[in-house]
């Protein structure tokens, strides 16, 4: 008896719990499809699960929350339902009435000047109708109850449980639960078939501003509809679920047609053009970039521009200082500092030392074999009235290094080491370019009558082997020559400008311009070589001065090489005489040291390495 009584008590508790949860679930189903503010439906109408619930359409028990499992129906989150159910959790004997209210805006409503205070009632508001509740005027013009859901649990006030009832109580909770499941399924389908659902979908799925809105009100007591109002509505009553303790009833009164209420579901605001949107030119004028980035100096002044320019100078056969502006770049004014910078930024072979003292460079450039890297005919004398490119002393080496032209093997060393070079020997004062070149070639030919001269005149010819010191891979085209030179440099880690012995030691393969190993200051046999080197240096410097930008046509510039080189030779030959006695410090401003500093640095380094190479060869 006690057990049966206990079972009855537990059974009753279960049933009460089922009823309570039924109230909550019903409210949840109704409000989630009537309350636009908490809806998470997408435009297509497919159900979009809230972030709290797993976004999985498949039934997965692990992804359901505890309250989802009630009645085997997992729903989206509906805060409005959760907020309003507390009252009925305390006592499920009170009826729960859910009014779905259609709020219509006035005809002259201006969306831009809309004041929320006088507008819609928030769907989240809840009101408990009391006997004196007059917050809402249901009879107001702009408010109409289009649906009224009534859920009530009518308890049976029967006597104590008997044997038969006890048996039924044992199964009543199960039956109640199963029937509740079915009822809630029907409710879920029904709320989507009623006319108000269309309004809800229009509000939630469309971006248009509607002239109406939906609100809800959950209460336990409402004023009944008038006969007239009820005549316009239809009723749908769900089959009550009978239990031993009571009866669960659910019904709905709804307006069959909401169209008659003068609604225009699709009343979008006409599109307006916003002229001054964020980011528009009118709203925010474009900021101009400062013009300071425009390089006013020669291309040689830019380390990056110059970094590779000396590799391209062979292509264009003109000095990188193609900019006729004689204005020196800051690099020229601060030769040492910029020189150091250029050394760091330069692209030359990694074997180049970061710092090559001027003396070393000078000495290196004295080596006679520098010209193997520099086909002198590539020199293109600068037509501009730029300062002479010849710098007798070490400044010459710097200047030429700054030129950034490929042929670092400019015998500036010879020029610098022998300020008293009889430049006049190189060229007549102002011969024609061709003549100048020819004379230089003749000088060169003193050592090698024909080969070098031919090379000077026809640099593009394929006679790499006649360029002393040059690798056999060096071919006729300037580009190829330089590329081979670069590769040549790269192949040597310890010394970038190591020349093959046979090329160096073979006098027949060299012109006088490309000196044999030996002390550069050796008199006699080296004199002519020095002179030729001077001419070559001058030509080179001139060429570097007149070097066009990197993007220029290399072929065109190559063609100009011979004539330009002649000019340069002439001018160079003149300059040393003029500046022969000048102080070394003034050299940095002359010489067309508009040429880049990086080239000068490169030349210096190259000469330094050459000097080292020569010294090593001497040791042998």
């Amino acid at each position, binding site marked *: 008896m006690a057990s049966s009584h206990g079972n009855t008590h537990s059974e009753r508790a279960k049933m009460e719990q089922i009823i309570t949860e039924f109230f909550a679930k019903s409210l949840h189903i109704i409000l989630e499809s009537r309350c636009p503010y908490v809806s998470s*439906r997408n435009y*297509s*109408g*497919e*159900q979009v*699960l809230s972030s709290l619930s797993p976004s*999985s*359409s*498949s*039934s997965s*028990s692990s992804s*359901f929350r505890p309250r*989802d*499992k009630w009645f*085997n*129906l*997992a*729903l989206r989150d509906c805060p409005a339902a959760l907020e309003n159910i507390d009252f009925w959790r305390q006592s499920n004997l009170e009826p729960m009435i859910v009014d779905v209210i259609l709020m219509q805006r006035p005809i002259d409503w201006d969306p831009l000047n809309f004041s929320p205070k006088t507008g819609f009632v928030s769907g989240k508001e809840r009101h408990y109708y009391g006997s004196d509740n007059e917050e809402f005027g249901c009879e107001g013009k702009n408010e109409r109850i289009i649906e009224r859901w009534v859920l009530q649990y009518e308890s049976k006030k029967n006597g104590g449980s008997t044997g038969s009832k006890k048996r039924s109580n044992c199964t009543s909770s199960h039956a109640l639960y*199963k*029937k509740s*499941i*079915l*009822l809630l*399924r*029907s409710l*879920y*389908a*029904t709320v*989507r*078939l009623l006319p108000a*659902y*269309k309004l809800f*979908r229009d509000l939630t799925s469309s971006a248009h501003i509607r002239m109406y809105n939906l609100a809800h009100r959950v209460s336990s007591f409402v004023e009944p509809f008038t006969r007239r109002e009820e005549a316009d509505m239809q009723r*749908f009553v*769900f*089959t009550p679920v009978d239990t031993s303790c009571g009866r669960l009833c659910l019904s709905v009164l709804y307006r069959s047609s909401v169209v008659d209420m003068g609604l225009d579901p699709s009343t979008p605001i006409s599109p307006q053009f916003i002229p001054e949107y964020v980011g528009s030119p009118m709203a925010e004028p474009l900021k101009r970039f400062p013009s300071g980035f425009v390089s006013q100096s020669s291309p040689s002044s830019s380390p990056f521009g110059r970094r590779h320019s000396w590799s391209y100078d062979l292509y264009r056969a003109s000095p990188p200082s193609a900019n006729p502006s004689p204005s020196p770049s800051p690099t020229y004014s601060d030769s040492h500092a910029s020189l150091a910078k250029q050394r760091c930024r330069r692209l030359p072979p990694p074997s180049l030392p970061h710092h090559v003292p001027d003396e070393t460079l000078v000495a290196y450039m004295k080596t006679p074999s520098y010209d193997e890297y520099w086909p002198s005919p590539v020199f293109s004398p600068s037509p501009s009235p730029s300062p002479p490119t010849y710098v007798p002393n070490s400044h010459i080496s710097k200047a030429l290094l700054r030129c950034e032209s490929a042929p670092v093997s400019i015998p500036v060393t010879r020029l610098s080491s022998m300020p008293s070079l009889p430049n006049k020997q190189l060229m007549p004062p102002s011969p024609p370019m061709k003549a100048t070149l020819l004379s230089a070639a003749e000088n060169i030919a003193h050592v090698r009558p024909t080969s070098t001269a031919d090379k000077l005149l026809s640099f593009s010819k394929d006679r790499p082997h006649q360029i002393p010191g040059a690798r056999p891979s060096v071919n006729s085209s300037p580009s190829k020559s330089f590329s081979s030179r670069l590769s040549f440099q790269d192949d040597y880690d310890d010394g970038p400008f190591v020349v093959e012995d046979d090329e160096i030691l073979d006098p027949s393969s060299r012109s006088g311009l490309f000196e044999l190993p030996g002390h550069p200051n050796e008199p006699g046999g080296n004199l002519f070589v020095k002179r030729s080197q001077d001419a070559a240096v001058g030509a080179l410097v001139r060429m570097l001065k007149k070097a066009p930008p990197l993007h220029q046509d290399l072929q065109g510039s190559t063609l100009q090489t011979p004539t330009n080189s002649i000019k340069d030779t002439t001018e160079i030959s003149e300059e040393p005489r003029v500046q022969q006695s000048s102080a070394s410090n003034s050299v940095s401003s002359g010489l067309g040291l508009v040429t880049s500093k990086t080239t000068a640095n490169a030349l210096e380094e190259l000469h330094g390495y050459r000097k080292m190479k020569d010294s090593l060869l001497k040791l042998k």
Partner: protein
Amino acid sequence: MNCEVCQLKELDVEHFEIREVLRCILHTILFHRALGLVRPKDIDLELFEITYVQCGDVELERKIDEKIDQFLDRVEKHPNKKNQICLSFYEVKNKQPTWFTNKVERLYWEQWYINLNVAQHQKGHSGKSTSSKIVVDPEAEERTVRRAALEASLRDVLFQIIRFVNEKKDHIPPIPNLEGVSFPYEITISSSSDSAFGMEMFKRMLQTGHPTMLS
């Protein structure tokens, strides 16, 4: 256990409307019979302003689509006939094998009959004269009227299902599964002129042991 039978209201549909109508009806019924743990999925019909509910079972969706394809094939083969789809729920009763049969007995406890009258659209080949415009407009208007009527009828059918589900609850067996469609079911297709149609009905009568309730 009783076998509850529900003959749904006959619908006049066109060929291109069959799929949507059948999906709507079948899924609505099965949603009410998927008493396990489900996460409902709302589906909007394209041809009508109706939203129906699926139980979210992918396998179920596939099976239904297969049956609809079979129905469409049958309709094409047998035009101008009343077609019917029967959705039956049954219980599996393990019958002791006998000499005659070794099969497992099915005990149907609910049957739904979906009646569709597929209209054969007669295209007007009246020529392309100026009068064709006049002909087209009434047809379009008629089509619109017919579509509205079909939508209302479909809505009535859905409410009919809901009412039936609400009214008949005692015949449902205990819920065996926890997820998806709880009960075994089958979908059969028949047509009025099909000789097997009557045989199908007769077989079910024998299995259920109760006369078919034709309403």
